[in-house]
C-alpha cells in the first residue's frame, strides 16, 4: 500500500465518523489551547513585570548590611562575626565614587503619628533630599526634604496618610506628633502605589538624622545608589563595594545588589511559573492522548469486520497498522492545529481585554504543545493499531 493511499484511506475513515472525529479533535485542541493560553498569560506577566521594573530606573545599586554570599575563608571573618552597620557617613562616602550620581540612605521603622486626636501607625523612612529624584517620585504638594538642613524637624507624608489624617483640610504647614517629636509637614507625595516592598502612599519621610534620633540608632536599613548611567551600574557596584570595604577595616561585610539581579530573579520566578502552568496544561494533553487511544480502540472494535475484509483482500499487517496509525496521527494533528488557532485567538482576546499585558505565547510553548499533541496521539495510537494488525482474519470477518 502506498503512503499516499494510506493517508487517503485514513482520512476517509476519520471523516466517515464526523461526531467521533469532532469530539476527539475538540479534546486534543482544548489541551493545546490550554498550553498556548496559559503560557501566554505566564509569559505576559513576566514581560509585564520586567517592563515595569525597567521603567522604574534600572541604574540602581542597593546596598544592604551583611554578606549574603559565602566568600571562602577570610582571617577577618574568623575574628569578627557580626557585620558592621551601615552608617550615614558610608552613604556620603559613596557619593564620591566616580560612577555614582547620587545616593540616599534609608533608615526605617514604625511609629505612631498623632494629629488632632487621630492616631495611626505608620512606616517612617529616614532619608535625604536625593531620595525623591533617586526613586523617581513626584510631589503632589509642597517640597521635599531640604538638602541644606539635615536636622530640620520636617516631614513629607504619603497621599493616603494625608487623606486619613487631614481629610479635606490643607496639610502643609501643620505640625504632627510622631513618637515623642513634633514635625512640620512640608510636602505630600503624589499617589504612586507599591515600590520596593513598601507602599509609598502610607509612609512618612523624615530627615535621616531625625529618624535615627527617634529610633535611637545609628544604623541604616539600606543605601540606595544611582549610577551615572545604565552602563555604569556594574562599575558603580564595584566601586561601592571597594569603598565600603576600605571603610569597614578591609572586610567586605555588605551586599550590593543591582536592579539587574532583582530583575533576573523576577525573570526566573515568573519563567518557572510559566513552565509550571505549561506543565499543568500539558496534563490535559496526556489525557487527550489517552482519549486518542480509547477512540482508536473503539474504532478497531467497530471496524473489526472491515479489518478482516482488508486481510482477506491481501492487506499485510503493516498496511493495516499504518492505516490506523495514520488515522490517530490525523486526529491529533487536526486537534493540534485547531488548538493552536484557538490558543492564539485566546491570547489575542487576553491582550485585547488586558491591554497592559503582552500575552504572547512563547515559541517553545507552542512547539512543545504541538509536539506533545502529535507524539502522544501517535504513541497512544500504536497499541490500537497493533491490535488491529494482529486480528485473526477469520474471527474478524465473522463480526459485522
Amino acid at each position, binding site marked *: *500500500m502506498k503512503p499516499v493511499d494510506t493517508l487517503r484511506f485514513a482520512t476517509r475513515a476519520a471523516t*466517515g465518523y464526523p461526531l467521533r472525529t469532532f469530539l476527539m479533535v475538540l479534546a486534543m485542541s482544548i489541551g493545546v489551547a490550554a498550553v498556548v493560553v496559559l503560557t501566554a498569560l505566564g509569559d505576559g506577566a513576566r514581560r509585564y513585570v520586567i517592563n515595569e521594573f525597567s521603567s522604574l530606573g534600572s541604574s540602581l545599586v542597593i546596598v544592604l548590611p551583611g554578606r549574603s554570599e559565602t566568600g571562602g575563608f577570610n582571617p577577618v571573618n574568623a575574628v569578627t562575626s557580626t557585620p558592621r552597620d551601615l552608617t550615614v557617613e558610608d552613604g556620603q562616602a559613596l557619593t564620591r565614587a566616580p560612577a555614582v550620581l547620587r545616593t540616599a540612605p534609608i533608615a526605617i521603622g514604625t511609629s505612631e503619628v498623632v494629629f488632632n486626636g487621630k492616631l495611626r501607625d505608620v512606616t517612617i523612612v529616614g532619608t535625604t533630599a536625593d531620595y525623591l529624584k533617586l526613586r523617581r517620585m513626584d510631589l503632589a504638594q509642597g517640597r521635599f526634604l531640604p538638602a541644606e538642613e539635615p536636622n530640620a524637624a520636617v516631614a513629607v507624608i504619603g497621599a493616603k496618610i494625608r487623606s486619613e489624617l487631614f481629610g479635606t483640610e490643607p496639610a502643609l504647614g501643620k505640625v504632627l506628633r510622631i513618637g515623642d517629636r513634633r514635625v512640620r509637614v512640608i510636602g505630600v507625595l503624589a499617589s504612586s502605589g507599591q515600590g520596593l516592598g513598601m507602599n509609598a502612599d502610607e509612609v512618612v519621610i523624615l530627615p535621616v538624622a531625625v529618624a535615627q534620633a527617634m529610633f535611637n540608632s545609628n544604623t541604616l536599613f539600606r543605601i540606595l545608589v544611582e549610577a551615572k548611567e545604565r552602563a555604569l551600574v556594574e562599575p558603580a557596584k564595584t566601586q561601592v563595594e571597594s569603598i565600603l570595604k576600605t571603610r569597614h577595616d578591609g572586610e567586605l561585610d555588605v551586599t550590593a545588589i543591582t536592579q539587574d539581579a532583582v530583575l533576573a530573579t523576577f525573570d526566573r520566578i515568573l519563567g518557572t511559573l510559566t513552565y509550571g502552568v505549561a506543565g499543568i496544561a500539558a496534563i490535559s494533553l496526556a489525557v487527550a492522548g489517552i482519549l486518542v487511544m480509547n477512540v482508536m480502540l473503539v474504532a478497531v472494535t467497530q471496524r473489526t469486520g472491515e479489518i478482516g475484509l482488508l*486481510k*482477506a*483482500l*491481501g*492487506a*499485510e499487517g503493516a498496511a493495516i497498522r499504518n492505516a490506523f496509525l495514520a488515522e490517530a496521527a490525523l486526529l491529533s494533528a487536526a486537534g493540534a492545529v485547531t488548538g493552536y488557532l484557538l490558543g492564539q485567538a485566546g491570547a489575542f482576546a487576553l491582550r485585547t481585554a488586558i491591554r497592559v499585558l503582552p500575552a504572547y505565547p512563547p515559541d517553545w510553548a507552542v512547539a512543545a504543545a504541538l509536539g506533545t499533541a502529535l507524539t502522544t496521539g501517535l504513541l497512544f495510537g500504536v497499541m490500537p493499531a497493533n491490535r488491529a494488525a494482529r486480528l485473526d482474519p477469520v474471527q474478524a470477518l465473522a463480526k459485522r
Partner: protein
Amino acid sequence: MPLIELTGIERVFTLGDSVVHALANLDLSIEAGAYVAVMGQSGSGKSTLLNLLGLLDRPDAGTYRLEGRDVTTLAPDEQARVRRERIGFVFQSFHLVPRLTAAENIALPLMLAGIDPVERARRVGKALEDFGLANRADHRPDQLSGGQRQRVAIARATIMQPAVILADEPTGNLDRATGEEVVHLLETLNARGVTLIMVTHDAALGARAGRRVVMQDGRKIADG
C-alpha cells in the same frame, strides 16, 4: 498439476474442554477452471475449509499446495500477497466498506497492491462497465440494492484477476431472482477460466456445479 491440492489436512478447535475436529484428514484436489460446490450442514466444516483455501486460516497438520507451491508454511505477509494476487473472496454479507463508494470498494485490492492511481482508475472503470455498475460508481453501499452490492463485491474479487474465486453462500442474503443473477455472473466468470469454489447449503445451487464436495463432521463424505 492441480490448481489446489490438500493432503492430510487437520484443523482442530478447542472449545473449553471439548476438542472439535473441524477438518479431519482431508484430501482434496481441484483442477484449474473447475466449478466446485462445497456442501453440508452448518458445523460440517465447509466454512473452515473455505478459510483454509483462502489462506485466512492455517491447518494444524497437512499441506496445502496452490499452483504447485506449498503455501502452508508461508509467513503471514507472504500469505497476504498470495491472497491479494491469486484469490478472490465473495461473502454472504458482501463485506463492503460502508463509507467508501462502489468504485472505491472495487479499487481496494488494487490500492493494497500499490498499483498507481491512473491504472487503478482504468481497471475499476472497466470493471464497473463489465458488471453493469457504471452509473453506480459514486454510490455508497447503503445506496445500492443487495444485488448491486454483491456485484460490487464480485467486481472487487475479480479486479486482480485471481486464479480462484472463493464464494461463501454468495446468494444467502439475496432474493431468488437476484441470487440467480449473481450465480449466473459467477458462472460466466468460471466459463472464462476462473476456478470457482462456492460454499452453499442450497441443493439447487449445488446441483449447477460441475462437482459437489459434501462435508460432514469435518470429513468429505461425497465428491463428484
